[in-house]
């Protein structure tokens, strides 16, 4: 197969490795080293996309990251990726690409009717002015239509099979961009001994040097010099070279994000390779060498396929060995346009003529062009092109001394090149919060005052030309290395010959003679923003460039204004009659070019999205068929269904069996903190509402913790192991918060106390054995502890052994039954559990989960922090005033309890609710009202916090927070539901064994 526009020789593609790919279903040949763009051009394919609003046919504008037009979808199935720039897609054998935003086909797109609408109808912001009547039509008619036209590509339809990875990296000098300036900077910095990372978003390092034809460096071609330099850097162990690595963001304290593409360019990558790696680089010093972006011209129909940036055409011929056309017209306002013309001519294209916008056409470029026999017309502009799907010709105009344009000749051509000058890529500098300065002479923004440890070199710093960029790059690299602590000198600058140094440039709309109503001259190609749109925005009062941006959407497309922002600014500045720097720039934000979501997520994916915390006896529960629930990061056994049981049946059985005999429950997730030190009791006094000084070693107490605002924050049973040692338990979810809260007070408020906190949550497996037979189960297993009722009363704690394993044995109950909590070192958790379970079988022991635990505690009226409380609840609201050490002068939260609102009589208080019909179960979260059908807008009295079917009570039970609830006991209230209110009676929130007779046995 033969690509018709491939040059006979030259370029950096590997002609020994032919490849085949498809675009819109048609198969084409290409070479290794091609981009999709270069390969399409080699095959004469110019029409590659459709624009956003008008669906205009679009071709390749550029050869790089700035491409606004050639967005394609690549790949299949889960690997389909929309909106990729053909200029950045590397070719591999079998690549499948398709065009976007067109129907039914790229050549014939129905959406193009938008382009035929009366001129100006769909101008900037028109949608703010219409679609408002009749009311409701926006939602039902207009918005659905607008949404259908939205978007460019199609989102993937299947989950992404690839994976992504991260790496933190550190270096003395990070160099971003590996063109002349970046390579030089890396050489200088590495030469000084600095650890260097050099990153470039392209597949090959060298930047603009790879697109050079005429220039030589130290006697070799520029690209050969680049190769040599890269090889030297690669050989240096202090240098990390990253290709296909876009630096997308510059964050505080010299922290930069780089995303490296690892597999997209390969046809069958190793399956273990991640698709992309995000580098998170902390650099001591940074050199920005990100080059410059060529500006297109804004003239009528400047968007037709075949209208291209001059530098892009140069890249296609020189780097890829592709002729982007046969007959080229070069439209320039910069010396670099001539370099392109010369290169195209030497590649065998006919250069019809060079239209030079500037009045003077006698610079080095023009002289060289004329010497090569090319026609150069000064004061000449392109005022339009012919051809819809591909340029067929261009009309020229002459700028008179008064600035008016008179129509000139029409030339036949299939390529119109634009060389409107260079816009330094200051994105990263600006993101670093450096202050840009406006260079009046060249009318560009350049890096000004730095805010971080960085410097810019080369074209991104306004320094054009290879020689100058090399020199500046060396100096920047040396400076960076020096500042990073290395003795550095810039290497001697190599000898550069034969280059045409970019100089000149133009901003704003190109003048023309045509009826402005009838033509469209594009500023933002992708978003279809025209010069007229920008002028309209200004006319409508959008005086800030930020308003212009948002009203017109200029610069908001996926290229983020790389080719349009400066043009838009120039046109707005003109319309406002204010110089550009006074109009200002919009903000540069990350990313420089779009970055895959998956790359941000990295390995935080699937089950590794968050750690899964399992208890020491998790596997046992799983083997028993437990259903688990997520509590924070923990998996907790929720219930243990037997064959055929649903949750309700399982819970009913579990609860009954606990009360009838005995149950076993995994309490390991409870937070545990060991509070140790001579001032431990005093610390506890200050952090908990309860008094602790008099609690004897070996005894436990229910502790209530408030935040400083007086609201309940946590609770738990706390055992005193020794005068100076407490074993504190917290709620599962509250554990980290409670420890942090304690540390805060300890380190910053109560610094007088000698006490230390150690988290022991995971040290102990906690096996709760609850039920009238609990003692019988444990007795045979426990050594060295008398667990008889007399020796070990309720709320006590002993140390000894169980099954030979050291234990802290608590006699506590969250069920209202006789109960123990066996704490054993976690590695022994499962063995002890199994021993207890085996012993328990003699008593028909049941394993129960968190759901039964909730029911059992609710039957007893025990609260759960986070369920009965919501951060607005005081101890008094819960009826827990008894837990407050009244004699204590202070504790965290005490002062707040006397604030006016916290002592109001009608506060919501915890009560029980019993439905009239015992079979009716209330819904947690349901509201409580005084009447069955409250008038809309009447405040609720409160809400149901817990509701269960209670096997012990033989009916449904509920707890609720109800305004003035304690005084309402006996009253009938209503719980309004969607299908009618449920009548309830207010009761005590204790539904079983109110005297606690089952506990103390």
């Amino acid at each position, binding site marked *: 197969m033969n690509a018709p526009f491939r040059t006979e020789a030259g370029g950096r593609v590997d002609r020994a490795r032919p490849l085949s790919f498809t675009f819109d279903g048609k198969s084409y040949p290409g070479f290794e080293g091609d981009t999709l763009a270069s390969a399409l051009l080699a095959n004469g394919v110019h029409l590659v996309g459709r624009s956003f609003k008008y669906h205009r046919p679009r071709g390749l504008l550029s050869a790089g990251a700035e491409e606004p037009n050639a967005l394609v979808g690549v790949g299949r199935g889960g690997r389909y990726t929309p909106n990729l720039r053909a200029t950045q897609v590397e070719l591999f054998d079998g690549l499948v690409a398709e065009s976007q935003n067109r129907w039914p086909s790229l050549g014939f797109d129905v959406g193009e009717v938008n382009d035929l609408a009366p001129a100006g109808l769909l*101008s900037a912001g028109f949608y703010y*002015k219409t679609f*408002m009547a009749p009311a409701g039509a926006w939602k039902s008619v207009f918005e659905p239509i607008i949404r259908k036209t939205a978007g460019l590509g199609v989102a993937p339809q299947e989950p992404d099979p690839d994976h992504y990875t991260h790496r933190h990296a550190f270096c003395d000098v990070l160099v971003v961009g590996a063109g002349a300036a970046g390579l030089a900077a890396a050489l200088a910095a590495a030469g000084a001994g600095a650890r260097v990372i050099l990153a470039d978003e392209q597949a090959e390092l060298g930047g603009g040097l790879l697109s050079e034809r005429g220039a030589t460096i130290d006697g070799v071609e520029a690209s050969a010099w680049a190769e040599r330099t890269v090889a030297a850097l690669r050989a240096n162990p202090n240098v990390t070279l990253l290709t296909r690595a876009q630096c997308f963001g510059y964050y505080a304290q010299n922290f930069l994000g780089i995303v490296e593409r690892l597999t997209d360019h390969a046809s069958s990558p190793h399956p273990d390779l991640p698709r992309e790696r995000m580098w998170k680089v902390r650099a001591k010093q940074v050199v920005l060498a990100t080059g410059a972006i060529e500006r297109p011209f804004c003239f009528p129909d400047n968007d037709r396929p075949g209208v291209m940036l001059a530098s892009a055409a140069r890249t296609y011929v020189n780097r890829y060995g592709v002729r982007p056309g046969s007959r080229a017209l070069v439209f320039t306002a910069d010396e670099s346009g001539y370099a392109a013309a010369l290169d195209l001519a030497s590649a065998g294209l006919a250069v019809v003529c060079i239209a030079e916008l500037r009045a003077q056409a006698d610079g080095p470029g023009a002289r060289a062009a004329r010497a090569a026999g090319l026609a150069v017309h000064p004061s000449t502009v392109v005022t339009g092109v012919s051809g819809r799907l591909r340029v067929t010709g261009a009309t020229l105009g002459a700028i008179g001394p008064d600035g008016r344009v008179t129509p000139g000749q029409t030339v036949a051509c299939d390529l119109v090149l634009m060389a409107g000058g260079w816009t330094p890529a200051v994105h990263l500098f600006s993101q670093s919060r450096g202050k840009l300065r406006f260079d009046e002479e060249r009318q560009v923004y350049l890096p000004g005052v730095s805010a971080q440890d960085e410097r810019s070199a080369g074209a991104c710093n306004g320094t054009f030309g290879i020689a100058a960029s090399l020199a500046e790059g060396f100096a920047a690299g040396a400076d960076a290395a020096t500042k990073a602590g290395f003795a550095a000198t810039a290497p001697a600058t190599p000898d550069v010959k034969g280059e045409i140094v970019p100089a000149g440039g133009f901003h704003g709309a190109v003048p023309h003679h045509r009826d402005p109503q009838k033509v469209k001259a594009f500023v933002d190609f992708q978003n279809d923003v025209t010069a007229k749109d920008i002028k309209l925005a200004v006319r409508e009062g959008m005086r800030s460039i930020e308003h212009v941006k948002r009203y017109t959407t200029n610069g908001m497309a996926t290229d*983020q204004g790389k080719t349009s922002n400066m043009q838009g600014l120039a046109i707005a500045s003109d319309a406002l009659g204010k110089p550009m720097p006074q109009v200002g720039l919009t903000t540069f934000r990350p990313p420089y070019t779009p970055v895959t979501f*998956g790359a941000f*997520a990295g390995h935080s994916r699937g089950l590794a999205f968050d750690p899964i915390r399992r208890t020491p006896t998790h596997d046992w529960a799983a083997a028993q068929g437990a259903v688990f629930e997520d509590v924070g990061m923990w998996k907790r056994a929720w219930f243990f269904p037997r064959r055929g049981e649903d949750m309700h049946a399982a819970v009913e059985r579990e609860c009954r069996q606990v009360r009838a005999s005995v149950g076993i429950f995994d309490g390991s997730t409870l937070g545990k903190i060991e509070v140790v030190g001579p001032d431990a009791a005093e610390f506890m006094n200050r952090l908990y509402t309860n008094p602790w000084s008099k609690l004897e070693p070996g005894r436990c107490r229910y502790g209530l913790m408030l935040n400083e605002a007086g609201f309940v924050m946590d609770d738990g049973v706390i055992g005193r192991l020794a005068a100076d040692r407490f074993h504190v338990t917290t709620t599962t979810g509250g554990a980290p918060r409670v420890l942090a809260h304690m540390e805060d007070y300890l380190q910053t408020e109560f610094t007088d106390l000698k006490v230390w906190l150690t988290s022991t949550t995971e040290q102990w497996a906690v096996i709760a054995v609850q039920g009238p037979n609990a003692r019988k189960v444990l007795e045979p297993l426990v050594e060295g502890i008398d667990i008889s009722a007399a020796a070990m009363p309720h709320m006590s704690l002993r140390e000894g052994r169980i099954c030979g394993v050291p234990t802290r044995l608590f006699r506590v109950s969250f069920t209202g039954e006789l109960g123990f909590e066996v704490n054993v070192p976690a590695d022994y958790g499962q063995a002890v559990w199994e021993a207890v379970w085996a012993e328990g079988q003699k008593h028909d022991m049941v394993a129960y989960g968190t759901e039964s635990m909730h029911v059992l505690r609710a039957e007893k009226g025990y609260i759960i922090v986070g369920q009965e409380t919501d951060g607005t609840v005081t101890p008094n609201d819960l009826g827990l005033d008894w837990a407050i050490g009244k004699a204590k002068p202070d504790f965290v939260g005490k002062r707040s309890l006397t*604030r006016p609102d916290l002592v109001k009589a009608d506060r919501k208080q915890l009560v029980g609710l019993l439905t009239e019909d015992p079979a009716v179960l209330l819904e947690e979260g349901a*509201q409580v009202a005084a009447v069955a059908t409250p008038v809309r807008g009447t405040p609720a009295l409160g809400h149901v916090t817990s509701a269960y079917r209670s096997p012990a009570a033989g009916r449904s039970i509920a707890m609720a927070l109800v305004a003035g609830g304690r005084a309402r006991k006996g009253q009938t209230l209503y719980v309004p539901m969607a299908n009618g209110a449920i009548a309830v009676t207010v009761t005590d929130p204790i539904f079983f064994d109110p005297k606690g007779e089952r506990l103390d046995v």
Partner: protein
Amino acid sequence: MKFSALTILRQALAGNLGWPEQWRSPEPKPAYDAVIVGGGGHGLATAYYMAKEHGMRNIAVVERGWLGGGNTGRNTTIIRSNYLWEESEGLYEHALKLWEGLSQELNYNVMYSARGVMMLAHNVHDVQVFKRHVHANRLQGIDNEWLTPEQAKAFCPILNIEKGIRYPIVGAALQRRGGTARHDAVAWGYARGASALGVDIIQNCEVTGIDRDASGAVSGLRTTKGDIRTRRIGVVAAGHTSVVMAMAGVRMPLESYPLQALVSEPVKPIMPCVVMSNTIHAYMSQSDKGELVIGAGTDAYTSYSQTGGLHIASHTLDAICELFPVVRRMRMLRNWGGIVDVTPDRSPIIGNTPVPGLFVNCGWGTGGFKATPGSGHVFAHTVARGEPHPINAAFTLDRFRTGRLIDEAAAAAVAH
């Protein structure tokens, strides 16, 4: 000029040369009856309603930058009213009702799109909390319904409701009247409306000082465009409230945090609604232009930088990719930050201050865009009458003394 399809056609035929400025850009007068500090949505709406409903025409809005350039211009535009406490329900529902007719009211298409806001529950606790909201809302006549995972997926087909995932979806609360609006249009629409009623909107005019007379009452403002005399100031400066209030010697219960958001590249519609997950911290919707609009929680430290850390975007997107696995290959187009002023109870402060003549509307934190019309409406009343509207009566500064907090965070920890 009234906006309509007809005027668009007429103007298009005339080369779009006849469109007037949408709002005037006058220089400040030496004195006004009242000055609103802050030209965000809330400030502009306040001025609009002060002029329209309270007949105050000699008033100004002063804005330090470009109007709408604060959080109004950088928020993820989620609108809903299914809050928990009655006070909040009243305020946000008031706003939602105004949203429903706002385009017509302003003759400016703010693209309020009632596409439904779905909040995902991932565990038992979430279910309890969201059901509590559903019930509370129903009592107040606010729509909010409970969905099974399957119903949630039917509403948003790209949602992953598989059971075996790290945080499976166990249900969702849906407010169908919730949705989004075009944020810039809200600022511009109110500005145009206010300007037409005579309000002076003064951009690039930063307030640098607040003058008080011997009695302590407000007497004027200093700005970068000169001094302005006035006896009534309404501060609606969002992230900068503490800074402005400090000029009057008032300390506030506020902290200003960076809040980031991001958009993807635009794609054809894949998502018909707004989805929020508080438990795994992310939310997403798709704009009419096609980009996915994504956000999460604030950065951890106070800042006025309008930027934030890379790790925040990472955590946001890892959550998004778990909820919607088909978007993992999509790409972030732009990531920005705003500065949100956060109160201890995550509810706004709207009302009088200890300084006579000085009123404040702030503390909307991460979720005030949705309140814009309602907030402006009740604050206009507050500034014009010197006392709060019944709807904002509870949102006092004094509640931090009495303890009468309106704690949306404690109850649900749902942002936005």
